[in-house]
């Protein structure tokens, strides 16, 4: 059974959302709820840490799309950091690569988006 964990921390004015595990259709609603909770509570500078995310499906992609759109509207910033090759592939093949900003690590994302 696949599982997903989402933890948050603050670094240099950004909220860093660390994802662990896999995101398939069953996990997508929970992911969206947790990310949007941060956005709704005023965290408009977000970096998502994909280091330990093994897999994302198209249902998960939609969640990131939604978060990106919300942050864009709030004049916020979103960085996608440290994606594994396979996960980046999913974004790439869906053509979503151009919709997000990707970085090799959380630190670089924060620096670039300041």
């Amino acid at each position, binding site marked *: *059974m*696949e599982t997903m964990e989402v933890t948050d921390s603050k670094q240099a004015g950004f909220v860093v959302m660390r994802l662990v595990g896999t995101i*398939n*259709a*069953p996990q997508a609603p929970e992911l969206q709820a947790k990310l949007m909770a941060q956005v709704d509570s005023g965290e408009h500078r977000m970096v998502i840490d994909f280091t330990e995310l093994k*897999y994302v*499906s*198209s*249902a998960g992609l*939609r969640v990131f*799309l*939604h978060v990106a*759109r919300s942050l864009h509207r709030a004049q916020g910033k979103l960085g996608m950091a440290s994606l594994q090759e396979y996960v980046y592939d999913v974004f*790439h*093949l*869906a*053509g*979503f*690569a*151009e*919709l997000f900003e990707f970085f090799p690590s959380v630190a670089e994302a924060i620096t670039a988006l300041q």
Partner: protein
Amino acid sequence: MNPIAYLKIGQKILLLIFLVSALSTCAYTLRSYRTERQLIRDGIDRTLLVAAYSVDQVAGKRWHERARDAHSIAPDEYLGCVRQLTEAANRYHVQYVYAMVEAGPQIVFTCSSATEEELRVGTYDHYFQPYPSASDALKKTFTEGTVHFEDYTDKYGEFRSVFVPLIAPGGRRYVLAADISTHFIQQRLQAMLLFSLGIGSTIFVVIFLFGWLLVSMISRPIHQLSEFTRQLVHHGFQAPPDVDRGLKLIAATCRDEVGNLAESFIFMEHELQEHIATIKETTAARERIESELRVGREIQMSVLPQDFPPFPRRQEFDLHGHIEPAKEMSGDFFDYYMIDEHHLYLTVGDVSGKGVPASLLMVTCRTLLETMANEGITDPGEILSRVNTEIARKNEALLFVTVFYAVLDVRTGELKYANAGHNPPYMLHGEGRVEELRENPSLALGLKDPYHYRTGTLIMQPGDCFFVYTDGVTEAQDTQLDIFTAARMEQVLAKGVQAPMKELVVQVVAAVKEFVGDAPQSDDITIVAVRYRGPALVDRPVAAAATG
């Protein structure tokens, strides 16, 4: 369950009142009786004492000293004493007064009153007559020197006696006694008891009556309320008018909790009726939607390509498609048509999300794609760009659709294709090689406008087939929420490369279903497979004839 629980409220209260009344009455009666009895007894004892002492007054203190034997007192003197004692006895309303002394082992009378009869006949107790059967109380009085009372019954009736020990001046002990018939005590006591009982019963009845009145006053509205609500329920919360009126009456006349209840019931009834009406409407509406969804699905399924092979007379290709929607209305679609004699147009699409919104977008997308093709646009990239512009307008909900669009020239095997965010299709080469067409990934339709979709080109050799699918295949989940993955699909493809397209599709679908097992289908499953056989023999230009 306890039978008392089955009584109505009024009956329960009445039972309680009854028990309380009965207990109080019994307690009162008993107490009354005892008190009276005690008083009577005390009275009698007092009388006995006084009567006994009167012997001393009559006989004098020295009388008993003189009693040595039967001849110590002369019969006349004795008789005089008897008469006086008799008067005394009568005065005090006692049976007898008398006195005794001990003479040796016996107890003898020293004087006594007598009845009229005895006086007349002369059978009164004589001087020094022995007392035939002295009771223990009497004996004790002599030995202990204390007053004793005694109740006894003989052939004449029931009596109470007192024995008072005194000392004569010479030191001799004598006992004064009085007997009183207690028969009248019994009578009096019985009368007393009846009287008490009478009072008690009256109290009981009065309390009970008042109680009953009060209970009726309280329990009648409760009973009515209970009856009305039962009727309310019986009539499915549409109360008949008399019940309605009755409830309103209770609410108006009773200003207590019962009245509040009645008001609440009236309010609840009203609310319930509205609620039931709303539910009926909602249910009817939902049923309409559901039946429309069912009809919608049937319509949708009927316009999706059903018959395979679709172009039986066309030998240039073997095409098979399969779609299994997850919900009533699907977001996946595929379509193909021969736009002209030589060109096969093929589209496979997947709308994000499921249900009604997805299927609406699906229909829109299909229609747009077909329209573009009919307007003569032949470049897949261009078609997608234009459709994207249309869909991206007013796309607040961020719905998007992935599309793979291909045009095959059946004369040459040239395949032009564009991919808007869709899973990269596979090219299965005749010699068994499975290749994923990964270049040219573009964004799904509906997200970014304007957007340039690139067209890719390749040449299919006879025997090559390409295999398009949606993520419902690769992301199908089993009960452990593990997914099928592209790797498993590639395995099936590798094995079935040589098979007819229908069989290949069937194999893939079977593999997915076996993997999924009992888990519910989470997304639409769509597969289209096309094998290029080569140009039709009929179409080959007759070169010899042209050159003559």
